[in-house]
């Protein structure tokens, strides 16, 4: 994805109509470059710089004589303008009406504009831009006032440079699929008609499994958190039995990535995965991200990009922040289960979308039992300029949450009526989470080389209490006093400080008359982690056993080389190699937990961490283990085309996942999990019926030498044997002036290499659709039209393989919303699980004993079906006010 920052010096002017003070502002943001070179379209990634269309001639609209002329009520018309490769306006559509007279006047004027066409590299391409036309009624004659010159209309066409020199305005424009573009029409006489593209660039596409997902109008689809934005990528299933403050469990293309162990998560490059997290090494809690501040995601479903590092086994997901709705917005949501949310966002109109502030505070009682939650989150970012072609960003973030969790329920207890569908066994389940971070990034250019540096500092705290097995694991040890089962509640507490940075230098040069690129980069992070795990007695909440107590110092230093080579015009060879050195220094503060021959004179008793060896000889209870290992990861992608709007790709990548500190042994090479991924894909992009269509299909195969499989006794995923997954997906995005549709389907088969049996829990069929339609309604208030929008998110997940030859039930949910807006006011209604289907979000087969059947019945010790209940229908009302400001 490419960021643009364009400056121009221009004054857009025209003789003023006596009846009009019309100011044309380029307010929008979305330039959809429906390039004839479709292969470089949004989702496919962009390998050449795209320059937006420039206005050559413009005609000012005439203020309609039959329109109201109340100065207190200016009118805005939003237009979608299609510009062909010749720079001619071929189509103008109204997407935001301000009543017919204004609409007609705006259309008539803009149809007369001429442009220099948008370009991709040296090639003129067709483009679509959005233009806002702002009508300000003529001021009434001032009595006894001195004559003043009539203000000039300032039609500031989009990302355009106007030929005339007049007071300019600032506008922003975003090239679809290259979010973050900033086209600045700031005045600089000497640079008139010059567009500088200096924004932040993102890596070129790695093939059909590289998804640059613009959120856009699909933000209207109800989503409880930022993690649900991942559903815009194919093959994603999210579950969560841990509560609202717990990270979502992600299944991706046949992987059970748990809470991020197999997906490298980041937000604008700042890592989210937590190294050394005892609950899950690589745990990625995205709940701190305010969904309204996410403009796009880059999801790479596989380790195909040398920039991807640790945890990129199933792939990676990078959230890109921004605030497109400028001004001050207050949004209040209230609804089912005592849920309330207050969101405040602020983005100065004069600054681009990357300067913003946002804060939310949220509470819910939750559905059923023990699902209450509270959280607060704030994110602020400022983007400034470095020289004329560089930018810097400073981002600060704070988040804290407290929640409870219902955990899992046994199906036999539910069917026997001993438990309700939304009940819980253990009300002590839940946790807390906090995250505070600050990051700074700078990107500059010198000649044909781009430099980027980023530093980040993250403080993370987390406590998770989960009980999967009830009263099963507290077996009597000979050295312990006699006891009954005290309960299996696991209490994990974690504190991590992460500091690190990343950067690259990318150089462009011409060879074979084609632009080539090379890049070298680095990634470095250091994690200092304190983690404890205790078992809690159900009867009184007292900890009775310390399972783990680790202090870890973990470092990861990676370097990579990447190249984007074009031997001929229709072939792109992209790839390189990455090498990471991981070092582990783990202090086990509970290293001695057992003695083979205890001394009667110094009995170990019930202590968890011992200071003795056999026969009572003293030893320190701590022990340090350290080791280091290196991983070398080649990655390559071959892209061919486009031919007739079709681009083909083949990708290969090797990735790794570092291990849990509990698996670290002195001087024993760290047993990485390694993945090899292969993709064959095709992307088809074109304009269809005036809308942008991108469709793709991918065949993929992935092999992991040490997979992770859920262990109920450990309460997390643990290492298992090698697995292979083979599958196919199809995805499409269809975006028009009044609708936005994204749909995807994924089929995958995941098997263990040694037995050929299916990998349990991962979904083999996932279908998802996100739809939004929006248009002006046939009613106006005060001359301004009402605008309506409807959205729906539909999820279908096939019957997942479960242990012991079983299959889960299917998941089918529909979420929907309806909003009506007028000026800066918006009211909305959202419903999740609209059909109120009683479904099981997660299902597991394992052994547990909840002592629930009867007082005399014995512990259950064979696997039983467990499930995490999906949420019933919930309805929320939303009220939002926006003050756009200056």
């Amino acid at each position, binding site marked *: 994805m490419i960021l643009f920052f364009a400056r121009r010096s221009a004054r857009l002017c025209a003789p003023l109509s006596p009846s009009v003070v019309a100011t044309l502002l380029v307010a929008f943001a979305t330039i959809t470059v429906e390039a004839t070179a479709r292969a470089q379209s949004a989702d496919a990634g962009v390998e050449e710089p795209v320059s937006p269309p420039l206005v050559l001639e413009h005609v000012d609209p005439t203020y309609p004589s039959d329109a109201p002329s109340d100065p207190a009520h200016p009118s805005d018309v939003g237009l979608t303008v299609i510009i062909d490769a010749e720079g001619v306006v071929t189509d103008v559509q109204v997407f935001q009406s301000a009543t017919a007279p204004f609409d007609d006047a705006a259309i008539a004027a803009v149809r007369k504009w001429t442009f220099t066409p948008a370009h991709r590299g040296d090639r003129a391409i067709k483009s679509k831009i959005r233009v806002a036309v702002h009508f300000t009624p003529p001021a009434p004659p001032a009595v006894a006032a001195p004559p003043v010159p009539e203000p000039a209309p300032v039609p500031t066409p989009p990302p355009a440079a106007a030929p005339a020199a007049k007071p300019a305005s600032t506008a922003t424009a975003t090239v679809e699929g290259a979010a973050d573009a900033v086209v600045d029409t700031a005045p600089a006489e000497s640079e008139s008609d010059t567009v500088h593209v200096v924004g932040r660039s993102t890596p070129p596409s790695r093939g059909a499994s590289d998804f640059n997902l613009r959120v856009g109008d699909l933000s209207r689809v109800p989503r409880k958190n930022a993690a649900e934005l991942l559903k815009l990528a194919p093959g994603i299933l999210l579950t969560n039995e841990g509560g609202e403050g717990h990270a979502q469990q992600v299944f991706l293309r046949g992987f059970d990535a748990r809470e991020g162990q197999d997906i490298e998560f980041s937000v604008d490059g700042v890592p989210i995965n937590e190294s050394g997290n005892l609950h899950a090494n690589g745990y990625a809690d995205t709940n701190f991200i305010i969904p309204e501040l996410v403009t796009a995601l880059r999801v790479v479903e596989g380790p195909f990009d040398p920039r991807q590092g640790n945890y990129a086994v199933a792939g990676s997901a990078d959230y890109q922040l921004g605030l497109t709705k400028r001004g001050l917005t207050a949004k209040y949501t209230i609804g089912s289960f005592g849920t309330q949310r207050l969101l405040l966002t602020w983005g100065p109109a004069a600054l681009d979308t990357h300067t913003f502030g946002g804060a939310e505070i949220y509470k819910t009682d939750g559905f059923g039992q023990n699902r209450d939650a509270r959280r607060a989150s704030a994110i602020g970012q400022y983007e400034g300029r470095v020289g004329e072609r560089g930018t810097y960003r400073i981002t600060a973030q704070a988040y804290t949450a407290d929640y409870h969790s219902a955990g899992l329920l046994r199906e036999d207890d539910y069917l026997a009526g001993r438990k309700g569908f939304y009940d819980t066994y253990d009300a002590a389940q839940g946790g807390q989470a906090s995250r505070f971070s600050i990051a700074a990034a700078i990107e500059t250019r010198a000649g044909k080389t781009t430099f980027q540096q980023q530093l980040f500092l993250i403080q993370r705290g987390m406590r998770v209490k989960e009980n999967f097995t009830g009263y099963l694991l507290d077996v009597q040890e000979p050295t312990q006093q006699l006891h009954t089962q005290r309960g299996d509640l696991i209490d994990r507490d974690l504190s991590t400080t992460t500091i690190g940075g990343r950067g690259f230098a990318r150089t462009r040069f011409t060879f074979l008359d084609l632009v080539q690129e090379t890049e070298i980069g680095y990634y470095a992070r250091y994690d200092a982690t304190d983690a404890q795990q205790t078992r809690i007695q159900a009867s009184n909440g007292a900890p009775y056993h310390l399972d783990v107590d680790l202090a870890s110092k973990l470092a990861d230093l990676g370097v990579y080389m990447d190249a984007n080579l074009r031997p001929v015009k229709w072939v792109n060879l992209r790839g390189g190699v990455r090498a990471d050195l991981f070092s582990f220094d783990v202090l086990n503060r509970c290293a001695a937990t057992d003695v083979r021959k205890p001394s009667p004179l110094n009995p*170990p008793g019930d202590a968890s961490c011992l200071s003795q060896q056999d026969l009572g000889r003293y030893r320190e209870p701590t022990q340090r283990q350290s080791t280091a290992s290196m991983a070398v990861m080649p990655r390559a992608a071959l892209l061919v085309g486009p031919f007739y709007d079709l681009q083909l790709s083949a990708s290969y990548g090797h990735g790794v996942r570092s291990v849990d500190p509990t698996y670290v042994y002195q001087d024993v090479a760290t047993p990485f999990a390694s993945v090899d991924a292969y993709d064959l894909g095709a992307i088809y992009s074109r304009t269809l019926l005036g809308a942008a269509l991108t469709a793709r299909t991918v065949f993929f195969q992935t092999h992991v030498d040490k997979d992770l499989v859920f262990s109920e006794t450990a309460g997390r995923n643990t290492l298992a044997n090698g697995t292979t997954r083979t599958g196919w997906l199809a995805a499409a995005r269809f975006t028009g002036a009044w609708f936005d549709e994204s749909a995807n389907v994924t089929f995958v088969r995941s098997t263990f290499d040694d037995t050929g*049996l299916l990998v349990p829990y991962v979904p083999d*069929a996932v279908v998802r659709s996100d739809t939004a339609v929006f248009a002006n309604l046939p009613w106006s208030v005060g001359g301004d039209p009402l605008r309506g929008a409807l959205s729906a998110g539909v999820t279908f997940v096939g019957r997942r393989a479960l242990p012991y030859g079983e299959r889960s039930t299917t998941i089918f949910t529909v979420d929907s919303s309806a909003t009506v807006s007028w000026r800066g006011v918006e009211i909305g209604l959202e419903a999740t699980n609209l059909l109120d289907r009683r479904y099981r979000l997660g299902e597991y*087969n394992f052994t547990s004993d909840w002592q629930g059947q009867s*007082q*005399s*019945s014995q512990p259950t010790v064979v696997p039983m079906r467990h499930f995490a209940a999906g949420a019933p229908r919930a309805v929320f009302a939303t009220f939002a006010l926006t003050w756009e400001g200056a």
Partner: protein
Amino acid sequence: MNRRSFALTLGVIAALTAACSGTTGSGRVTFNAYAAGPESIAIKGTYAFDNRQGFHVALTRAHLQVGGLFLSRVRPISTVRETACVTPGSYVAQVTNGLLVDLLDPAPQLFPGVGEGVIDHGLTGEVWLTGVRIDEDNDPTVIFDVAGIATKGADAFPFEGALTISQNRIVAPQDAALPGANPLCQQRIVTPIDTDVVPADGGSLTVRIDPAGIFQSVDFSQLVPGTGDAPLYRFLDKNEGQPDLNVMNGLRSRDAVYTFSFEGPH
């Protein structure tokens, strides 16, 4: 449907079929569970046998409280058993609801509820003799209620007993460093019982209990006579004395008393 649509449809069906087929192996099953006395009992309510102490024993009443049945995939490799009475992860079948079994009835007696398990080899059987949860400290339930007459030559020993397994069966730890070495649950669990069955859905698990094995080492002449006109000897409900100790050992005898079998669904 044109050729392209047909190919696409075919591809989707192929992908769907490939993705949604296969198994993770094994399977969960439910079955009925039964307990019964020896098949050799001709008339319900009476059972006679000779024991190794030279007594001819005729039982007129024998009820055993079975708290649960369990099958494990782990075959013990030594006589030293784990302290833990329950070893999660090793079981292939369970019957968790108790049944008071009439040992003088050769007909299978159905346990309440169903047994549950997985398709795997059960190599070790466990019979839990308890009226409460296995790890409870106290159990007033009479586990073994027996009556009969033992004769040896001209001597006759009419007897009865009502045995419990509670604090009266606690075995004091021998090592002060191992206070938890002898949990009471160990006294309640009869294991390892050699077997080799594979549970199947809809099948029947049967444990046959031969009371003859319980009394093999009992010297009835050492029973304490009761008071009254007709002498009645009683087993004392404690681990003392040859007959009292040996009848309890007999209850916990592995192979001579309990036999598991599994019959598939008809």
